């Protein structure tokens, strides 16, 4: 595989940043633009994609235009349903079908991708135009070895290469994609690799025939922050060393900040704004962009340090190990002696990467896992020594909010019924439960009439509000929040975080928050515990820990967090705090002005803006 050489007469404008700023929209109606210069590698002009669904025609992409030069990274940023993935998949020819109407032009290296026949397109995709998908779990075929899957692609385009040679090349590619022990792992199955490695295999596969353009659709969204940082660094190196052009599709401005040469913001199928990172971050023109950026700011009251109350939850030297099948005695230590305390009305955030034991810890506290050693005391009652009945009573003081509101609400039950059942389980009469349900719904910012809705008739944010209402049904003193906003779009996240914050102030319940997102943690946490490999490596007051992390792991974790320039990821700025305080004083706690984007984003989520097949938009 030889990297495509860059023609020496290529205008500078196509090498990353556009110094003149001429790539900026100048009066084009939808703010979209075609880059200046002579020969862009990929040129998309007025691309529209609509899907015929039972509910009528849905236009997922609506007149999108952009250009991508050699060695350039273009980031397309938008929330779910904005059409960004459909856009990329259309370029790959993956949205073609009887129910799809595609119009516009997409020129790749002078060849038309939209009008190309399936056979012509097949020669381009995989060879010159490659794609990396979001979900590393399902993007590789589980029944074939990863090396074979790479070799398959090589041989599909170069049929005269022997299988042995193709496998050898697969090994080289995986080595270059920085997969440790790559030569051995050629023979590994996807499930034997970590998420980061699987994504690297996808990148190796994409580049196996010297692709000029890589379409990366949320390549790091499902990964841990430190792995995300590594993958992004790799993409950056590929751009610099091999002159690879990348279209990076993401919902996260933080991810694109220091890799993208240009950023296009998509909303409702259109590019609403396009420019260099400096322009987008410092002088966002469109209200939607401003809203998205606003949602990234540290939220609410940066949690003033308060006097700590009596301990509500005490976790003492907790040990949990899972026995692995077929092996005697030997188990995997999920928790190796964890001790924590949480005061009444406080929030303790547990941060760490996947596999660090944070979920196990949360489940142990919820009484779903029986620890091998150690004690969990809620209000002085020891879970381990408690009888069945006592345990049930103690659990009533516990509420839990789950990560995925879609999966954690019964899809066949109206949300009002879900709440009523939670209330009835705590001994309320049928009539009492109904009244309380209405109160709960109102308290979490929903209409009482929405009790009649089914979960799928609500937007993601609304569903999570129902999840919160359910957790609060028993007026618990402790609520466990398991990644409560990570499945939500950024603009909706803020509303849910604010709600959690208000509810805590109002009800005085304590939170244990598990999250990998420092914006969420910072907004809610009084104290933070950093976990790694089943142990708490550092804990302390939220502000101190974020400002002055002591443990190298914490430092690395914080450093790996993607951030937008100009926006402090550390601690809420004083000006921001002042603004928030005055807002809070001016009106009630619920006076939060809705973000301009929120309603639109919610509308999009509720609408059938999904193509008929299963790709996620």
């Amino acid at each position, binding site marked *: 595989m030889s990297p495509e050489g860059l023609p020496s007469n290529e205008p500078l404008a196509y090498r990353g940043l556009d110094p003149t700023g001429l790539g900026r929209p100048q009066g084009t109606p939808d703010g979209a633009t075609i880059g200046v210069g002579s020969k862009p590698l990929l040129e998309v002009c007025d691309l529209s994609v609509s899907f015929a669904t039972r509910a009528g025609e849905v236009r997922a992409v609506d007149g999108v235009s952009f250009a991508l030069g050699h060695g350039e990274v273009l980031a397309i940023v938008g929330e779910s349903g904005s059409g960004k993935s459909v856009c990329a998949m259309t370029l*790959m020819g*993956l949205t073609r079908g009887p129910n799809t109407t595609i119009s516009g032009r997409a020129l790749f290296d002078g060849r038309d991708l939209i009008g190309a026949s399936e056979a012509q397109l*097949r*020669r*381009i*995709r*995989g*060879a010159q135009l*490659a*794609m990396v*998908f979001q979900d590393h779990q*399902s*993007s*590789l*075929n*589980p*029944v074939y070895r990863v090396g074979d899957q790479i070799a*398959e*692609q090589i041989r*599909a*385009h170069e049929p005269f290469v022997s299988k042995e040679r193709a496998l050898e090349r697969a090994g080289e590619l995986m080595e270059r994609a920085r*997969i*440790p*022990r790559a030569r*051995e792992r050629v023979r*590994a*199955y996807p*499930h*034997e*690799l*970590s998420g*980061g*490695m699987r994504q690297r295999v*996808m990148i190796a*596969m994409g580049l196996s025939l010297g692709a000029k353009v890589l379409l990366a659709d949320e390549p790091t969204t499902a990964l841990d922050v*430190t*792995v995300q940082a590594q993958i992004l660094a790799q993409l950056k190196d590929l751009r610099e060393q091999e002159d690879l052009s990348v279209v990076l599709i993401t919902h996260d401005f933080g991810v694109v900040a220091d890799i993208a040469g240009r950023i296009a913001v998509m909303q409702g199928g259109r590019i609403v704004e396009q420019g260099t990172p400096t322009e987008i971050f410092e002088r966002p023109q469109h209200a939607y962009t401003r809203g998205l950026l606003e949602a990234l700011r540290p939220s609410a009251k940066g949690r003033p340090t308060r006097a700590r109350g009596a301990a509500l939850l005490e976790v003492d030297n907790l040990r949990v190990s899972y026995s692995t*099948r*077929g092996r005697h005695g030997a188990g995997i230590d999920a928790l190796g002696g964890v001790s924590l305390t949480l005061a009444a009305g406080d929030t303790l955030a547990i941060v760490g990467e996947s*596999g660090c034991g944070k979920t196990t810890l949360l489940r142990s506290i919820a009484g779903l896992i029986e620890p091998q050693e150690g004690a969990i005391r809620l209000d002085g009652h020891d879970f381990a020594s408690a009888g069945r009945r006592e345990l049930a009573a103690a659990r009533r003081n516990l509420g839990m909010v789950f990560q995925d509101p879609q999966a954690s609400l019964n899809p066949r039950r109206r949300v009002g019924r879900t709440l009523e059942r939670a209330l009835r389980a705590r001994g309320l009469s049928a009539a009492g439960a109904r009244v309380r349900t209405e109160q709960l719904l109102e308290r979490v910012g929903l209409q009482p009439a929405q009790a009649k809705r089914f979960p799928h008739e609500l937007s993601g944010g609304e569903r999570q509000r129902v999840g919160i209402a359910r957790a609060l049904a028993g007026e618990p003193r402790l609520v466990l929040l398991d990644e409560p906003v990570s499945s939500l779009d950024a603009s909706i996240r803020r509303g849910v975080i604010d709600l959690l914050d208000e509810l805590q102030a109002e009800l005085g319940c304590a939170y244990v928050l598990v999250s990998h997102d420092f914006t969420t943690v910072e907004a809610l946490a009084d104290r933070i515990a950093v976990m*790694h*490999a089943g*142990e*708490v*490596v*550092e*804990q*302390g*007051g939220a502000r*101190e*820990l974020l400002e*002055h992390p*002591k*443990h*190298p*792991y*914490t430092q*690395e974790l914080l450093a790996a967090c993607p951030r937008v320039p100009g926006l402090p990821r550390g601690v809420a700025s004083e000006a921001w705090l002042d603004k928030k305080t005055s807002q809070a004083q001016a009106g009630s706690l619920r006076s939060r002005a809705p973000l301009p984007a929120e309603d639109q984003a919610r509308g999009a989520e509720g609408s059938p803006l999904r193509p008929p097949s*299963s*790709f996620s938009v």
Partner: protein
Amino acid sequence: MEASSAPIPSLTDGPRAPRVSSAMTRQLWLVRFLARRVASLVAVLFAITVLTFLIFQAIPGGDPALRMAGRLATPQQVHDVRVQWGFDKPIYVQYLKTMEKVLDGSVISYSQQTNVEQEIVSDLPPTISLALGAGVIWLVVGVLFGLLSATHAGGWLDRALTVVSLTGISMPVFFLGAIMLYWLGYQWHLLPLEGYVSLTSDPWGWFTHMLMPWVALSVVSIGVYSRLLRANLLDVMSEDYVRTARAKGLSERRVLIRHVLRNSLMGIVTLWGLDFAWVIGGGAILVESVFNLGGVGQYAAQSIGRLDIPPVMVVTMLVAAAVVVLSTLVDIAYALLDPRVRLS
């Protein structure tokens, strides 16, 4: 702030490296797996024989002594038979005696006075011929129909195949068999009417004699398999890795065969194994009887009619054993088809 003095954790992908199991442990796994299956086979056989034995005790008119002594027998003769055959002993003794004979191959049919195991061995060739031929036909045609249906989902071919499949599923074997016998055998003389010819003595005769039974037995299964496979295929087609396969630039045929079909076959494999076991164990009673193949199923049907416990018990054991053995093979096939599956 309490920063512990734990060593700096590594942030690379290294720690989650797979535990590559050596060939040695893999073989050990297989041995353990097979040992467990053998144990479960014994348990299943024990349970099923006890149950069968008890059922025959409970059936009215099931007293074998009365039947064996004949209609005109005196009470003394009945008593003699009872003592001679051990029917006066407690049930568990009778059961143990019967099982002992079953195991050493000397069990005698109550009504025919023939050795049951020899009967069954001689009845196995037609049954195995039926199972193998029909199994291949319904698998191949079912997969073909399923593939065509799924790739033309919603189109006229899909709809036509759906109609064909549903007709096949709802067609009673004895009806279809009778129709085929009448037209193909009796009216047009295309195929022999009934009976079994051994493969070794006359291959062509074997083939022509088996053709109608194969078709009759396959029709239902073809319908079921093609519907099931169609659904599986459509599910797998929307998987992310199929999208990846297309994005790699593979031809549509390669995507379909290597990535879609391979991953859709799991459910079919299970079903096929169990259906095949069922036929081997004499489950195709109707087909065997309609075409008078003289197989295990027909023997079982006749024995049930005579309330003859020993043959019924042996045939039941054969079915159970076939099911356990085939499902073991299915599980091994599963582990070969899907590397994520571990035998346990």
